[in-house]
């Protein structure tokens, strides 16, 4: 994997104690990969006074304590990190090894009520949409609301539209797509994404000290399974594929 070239960043103040970092590049893929690389570097070289960061698909919100630091310092640090800091991978230390997940999913009209309409929109058969999803290798680009893994890498002829009318209550474990992204719904809730299937695994377990087993940068594949195979999983917590020693 090559390091995205993103040396130049845009830093916009956002309110009185945050800035928004974006990468001004015409290629969406570079904007998205670049901001992930930037976030990793920024967190590895976190300047004093930075409280937290919020990852967007193509942006990073940096929140700071205005009594411990100031806008120009944060902006300067961000530019410095973008230009000079080695990525955590290059450092060798502190980097978390990439994990791989093979997530079983039931793809049918019951568990994926938007599957048929997505197929219609793309001019494909439902089975071809399932093949396309199963044939895609996803990278987790960020953890969305309630630690939902948001992924990029869906290989379809054109981006999938969101629903015109959002669904009000989607079942946990639902696999949802929009654009070239996929996300898994960890808890019941509303969404405008298209629901195409469901995994029987528990994605987020708040009784665990670390409620999730995945992080940004991890690799995900969806493996179609029959409903009875899914039933055997019985809501077990999602774990990565064991790496050979």
């Amino acid at each position, binding site marked *: 994997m090559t390091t995205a070239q993103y040396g130049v960043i845009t830093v*916009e*103040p*956002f*309110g*009185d*104690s*945050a800035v*928004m970092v974006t990468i001004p590049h015409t290629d969406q893929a570079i904007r998205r990969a670049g901001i992930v690389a930037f*976030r990793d570097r920024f*967190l590895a070289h976190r300047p004093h006074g930075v*409280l*937290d*960061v*919020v*990852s*967007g*698909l*193509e*942006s*990073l*919100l940096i*929140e700071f304590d*205005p*009594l411990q630091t100031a*806008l120009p310092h944060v902006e300067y640090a961000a530019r410095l990190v973008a230009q000079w800091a080695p990525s955590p991978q290059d450092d060798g230390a502190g980097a978390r090894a990439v994990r791989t997940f093979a997530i079983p999913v039931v793809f049918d009209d019951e568990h994926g009520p938007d599957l048929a309409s997505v197929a219609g929109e793309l001019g494909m058969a439902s089975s071809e949409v399932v093949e396309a999803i199963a044939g895609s290798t996803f990278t987790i680009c*960020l*953890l*969305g*609301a*309630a*630690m*939902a893994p*948001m992924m990029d890498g869906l290989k379809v002829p054109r981006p999938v539209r969101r629903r015109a009318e959002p669904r009000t209550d989607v079942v946990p474990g639902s696999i949802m797509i929009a654009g070239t992204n996929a996300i898994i719904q*960890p*808890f019941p*809730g509303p969404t405008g994404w298209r629901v195409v299937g469901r995994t029987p695994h528990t994605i*987020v377990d*708040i009784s665990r000290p670390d*409620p*999730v087993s995945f*992080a940004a940068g991890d690799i995900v594949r969806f493996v179609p399974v029959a409903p009875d195979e899914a039933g055997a999983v019985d809501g077990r917590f999602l774990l990565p594929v064991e790496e050979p020693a």
Partner: protein
Amino acid sequence: MTTVALDITSTGWVTTFQDLGRRDTEQRGVPTGGAADQHSAAVANLLVGNPRGATLIENLGGELALVPDADVLLAVTGAPAEVTVGGGPVDGWTPLVVPAGEEIRVRADMSRGTRTYLAVNGMLTAPTLLGSAAPDARMGFGQLLAPGARVLVETEFRGFGRRVFEPPLFRLAVPVPRFEEDPWVVDVVASHSIHTIPGIRELIEDSVYVVTPRSNHVGLRLAGPVMHPDSDAEIVSHGVPIGALQIPHADELIVLGRYRSLTAGYPIVGVASRAALPLLGQAGPGRELRFRWTGRETSLRRFARREAQVHALGHAAAEAFGALGFTAPLSHAI
């Protein structure tokens, strides 16, 4: 240390464990959350000698009441409220002793603010998620308290043994916010997408907005005039600061709260000043708000002034409690 039980005898519409929120979790999709009115929560803790981020009880609407099984030192802050101990009126925003077996009742004046905070000297025993007792309803972490619940607190308070005619033990300079008549004025720092809607700056400045009942911890939804951008340029999912003023497709204005998540597709014209956030956390349905554009520097000066007062209170309280012989968890971490 002794363990004291607080028997909850009445709760408001929403009564939960609370603190100042999670740290370092937003990068993993979990909003910081925490007390909607951070100032009141921090001051309540300092008044009883706790670190400002200690777990306490937040009450929204209705009446909160509890009975301790031993003398406890507590403080009530937040919206103006009628507070009684054993039926007799007592003050908010000051340390109070509630004797064993006596009931403390807290009823906020909902026409003046929505949330009250009750802190008790010591450490409340409460479940935590990612290091914080703050609820996160979206993750199924409700932290709700109901009548009949028994909350345990580890405290070293053993009473002051003072007589009623003696002067007050504490004369602390407490930064009590003003809960003024409508409309409340909220300072807002403009953000860059304000330029995508010509005229919105003047419109917002000249209008009064009313908090609607569809508001919650994710955001205040305001009725009032808005304008929409002409272009339909795509805005991809991105993070937003607490207090962001968002214009959704409908004709309303949303002020995002501490439980906001990523947002997509809607322009954000400004962000409420940090100093204004505690006030917004007290705004309930029917509340009239006016927005005043302000520069970043002015906004931060107000925040710094408020923080200096809280800091001074922390020091004064630590000295007072230190003189009375308290040690941990009284602290230094203020």
